[in-house]
């Protein structure tokens, strides 16, 4: 009897250990952000901040440039995601529903572009932006982030469009719609989950981007990732403020992700794993 209880409960025991492993860094970030300074630098860590404070958040949101960076990050991210959604919807409709010469090549290029090594192309992007007098501006960031998320967006939307039964469109066309009308009235509304999940991943990518903004926008037009790393060195050992800043940076993504992940996981699997 005892043996079978142990036999049945070991997966649960491991699950608890893993739960702690995965959640602890997130918990530690948020809890540190609320702790009194004496609790942060105490020799024995305080695991539950009973006498919490908001002073670290206060310091973070009043730090130099915080709100400008919030604005910049939102402009760049939302701009990149919207632009890529428009371009990708057109392209993925062609790929999912039409037969044409060069279709396979296009699909292959998109697959390869999904893995483009932006991390090592920062130098040439810098030179391009400089030669066009666009350093420290939000425009190059927006269009390059758009390009970073575009292949994935096309790839995922293609799957979602292919999943909409063709007959729906056909019957709309029988009823007198043109092909464009059929798309707008029938397919587009059914794409809502696809659009949501793709924009979630686009949002995360652009919100997170660090190497490009690091080199392009040294003197202005900076975004939150840059602010956060700069904040850490500027505030040195002020871990309370640093963790408050990290929490503020992470919160929009965490919220979006928790709400949309169900749909997103399906999209991700369809896009990344199924060839």
């Amino acid at each position, binding site marked *: 009897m005892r043996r079978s209880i142990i036999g049945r409960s070991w997966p649960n025991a491991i699950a608890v250990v893993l739960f702690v492993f995965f*959640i602890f860094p997130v918990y530690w970030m948020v809890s540190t952000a609320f702790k009194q300074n004496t609790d942060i*630098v105490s020799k024995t860590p305080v695991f539950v901040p009973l006498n919490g404070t908001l002073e670290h958040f206060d310091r973070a949101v009043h730090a130099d440039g915080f709100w400008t960076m919030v604005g910049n990050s939102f402009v760049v991210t939302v701009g990149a995601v919207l632009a890529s959604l428009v371009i990708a919807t057109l392209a993925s409709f062609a790929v999912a529903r039409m037969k044409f010469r060069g279709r396979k090549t296009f699909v292959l290029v998109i697959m*390869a572009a999904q893995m483009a090594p*932006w991390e090592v192309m920062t130098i040439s992007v810098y030179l391009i932006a400089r030669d066009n007098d666009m350093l420290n501006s939000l425009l190059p960031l927006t269009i390059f982030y758009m390009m970073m998320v575009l292949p994935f967006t096309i790839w995922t939307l293609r799957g979602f469009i292919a999943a909409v039964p063709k007959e729906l469109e056909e019957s709309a066309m029988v009823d007198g719609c043109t092909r464009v009308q059929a798309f707008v009235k029938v397919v587009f509304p059914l794409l809502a989950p696809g659009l949501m999940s793709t924009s979630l991943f686009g949002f995360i990518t652009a919100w997170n981007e660090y190497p490009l903004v690091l080199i392009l926008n040294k003197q202005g037009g900076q975004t939150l990732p840059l602010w956060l790393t700069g904040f850490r060195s500027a505030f040195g050992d002020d871990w309370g403020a640093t963790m408050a800043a990290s929490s503020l940076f992470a919160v929009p993504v965490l919220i979006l992700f928790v709400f949309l*992940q169900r749909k997103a996981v399906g999209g*991700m699997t369809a896009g990344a794993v199924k060839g």
Partner: protein
Amino acid sequence: MAATEQIAPPTAGGTPTNGRPTAGPRLLTRIAPYLLLLPAILATLFLLGYPLLKTVLVSFQNLNSRQLVQHLTEWNGFENYTEQLSNGEFWHTTGRSVAFTVVNVVLIMVGGTLVGLLLNRLGKWMRLFLSASLILAWAMPIVASTTVYTWLFDQKYGVVNWLLDKLGFHGMLDYNWFSDQYSTFFVIILLIVWGSIPFVAFNMYAGLTTIPTELYEAARMDGAGSLKIFSSVIFPSLKPFFLATTFLEVIWVFKAFTQVFAMNMGGPQRLTETLPVYAFIEGVSNNHYGTGSAIAVLTILMLGALMAYYFRIILKQEDEL
């Protein structure tokens, strides 16, 4: 693969026609896909193709801060390449990058698979509980989680050093994790593995739910143990998943920049630089843009070789189907 047939223009009666439609719509239908693709193609050419080309061009130039400021173009042939390829530092960094990728990917794949298997075994509530923590780890923005890890491993007040001290490793109480190459890498690898396992685990779990339970039962009836079931039922059914995920992780880890750079800027003494960080530091921080671009091109060639290998496998599989 998606359905790719064209929709025939319907006639009034709703039955497909075999008659000849007028030339106008015909032409339009023929060029419609290209019109729809045009924005995407233009974007890819100008925003991805051009930077790629520019990287290659700059890699053949002598471009340092003087040339950069004065807008000079000085071609120097293969000099940047011969300089790198005969440079011990480059090969060290390459070796380090490869080892870094292998360690990470093995840990991510093994860990992710095990967590996925566990998710499949857990009861509903326990699964929800564990999934919630995985989702949080997955959704953490990289810059934020990198910052959090430096706090967890802080020399004076980091909770990890306190825990190690409590567990009896008293030497670790004031240990500076970022003073040594291996311990810095340990923290970076832990961060990457922690952040990457959820993706693999969820996909693994999603894959497992598609395997018919009869297959397990049959295997168990034949007296197969867990290992045997994994190797003869699960692995063969999910082979495309393992292939695609491993490949994706290899590419992602090989390219990883933010975790390595934002953690300790490639330090101590440049000992944790992987290829992307090396290209960035040589090119941007040390103002050798030509050299940095040559390193970038070499990195792209390595990634390209990996991708070509993977695409070949995929295409072969498609042929078999």
